[in-house]
């Protein structure tokens, strides 16, 4: 749970600077490996925000998820899937593999490298979140044109 978690909190307005230590689930490999979506919170419009870890095979997993949602007949207005990609994500993945090292060393390595990469790429994450926010706003307008009209 690394950059999607950060992106989710940026989207929700929980953080606006690289301050990751207080994010619940940050660098928690058990959550990352579980495969279950992790609920982060609700945005001001009542949309529920989740994160999901796919490990190294992001393209394969992403394609499978999109296909899965398609065969279930779910439209974008019900479930919006957003990939969060950053340079250095493989470094983060590699660092996460060190988490098995004993004495807390693995966890420290994981956090050290994750903090470095995510701090460096924080502006990119913010840009991706901004694009996502605009997309969500567009979807809301399409789904509720009357409520979005001026003066309504």
């Amino acid at each position: 749970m690394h950059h999607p978690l950060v992106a989710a909190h940026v989207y929700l307005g929980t953080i606006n600077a690289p301050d990751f230590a207080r994010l619940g689930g940050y660098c928690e490999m058990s959550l990352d490996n579980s495969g279950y979506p992790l609920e982060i919170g609700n945005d001001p419009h009542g949309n529920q925000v989740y994160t999901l870890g796919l490990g190294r095979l992001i393209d394969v997993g992403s394609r499978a998820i999109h296909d899965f949602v398609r065969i279930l007949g779910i439209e974008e207005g019900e479930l919006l899937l957003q990939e969060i990609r950053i340079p250095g994500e493989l470094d983060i993945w590699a660092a996460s593999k060190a988490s098995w090292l004993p004495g807390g060393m693995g966890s420290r390595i994981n956090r050290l490298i994750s903090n470095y990469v995510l701090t460096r790429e924080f502006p990119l994450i913010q840009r991706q979140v901004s694009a996502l926010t605009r997309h969500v706003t567009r979807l809301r307008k399409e789904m509720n044109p009357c409520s979005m009209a001026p003066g309504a």
Partner: protein
Amino acid sequence: MKIIYHCFGGSHSSVTAAAIHLGLLSTDRLPTAEELMKVPYFDKTPGEIYGVIRYMGQTQDGHQVYVLGKKNLGRRMNRIFIGLAELLGMEREIVVTNTMPYVNILMMLGGYLSRRWGLTFPGRAILIWGTRLAFPALADLVRQTRLKTIPGGGENEDYPSGDHGGASPPGCGPRVSGHN
């Protein structure tokens, strides 16, 4: 109901299981090489098809059967699908089955030679030998999967009842999920 069999390449064990489920392969005897090669997608899947869920057919009960090659996503794939289905309140409409535990070394070797190296001559012979060895176990897996399509017949693998940290009741409006 949607039934998804998944394995590494989506070309051998998952396809065989799906074929058994659809009745394309009889379970009262081992299939011949010709019968296996007639199964759609069996040892015919190109590498770039990873992650694509392909439709295999529909059962007499109206359940739709799919296959998927997920590379090394492993058991996580089951949990991802089940978790998403739970978010959408559709967890009773899908059954996902990982066929990887039933893949033997011959299937791995034969599949690798055939798909990765294009050596279909020794590859397919080894693959078919391995698939015939694994066939009874795959047939049993399909029997278990069929039970899950019956109401009260069982739950998806990796779908323990109760809280597992992810799902919440459906909300109003789009749900947004960021994933890496």
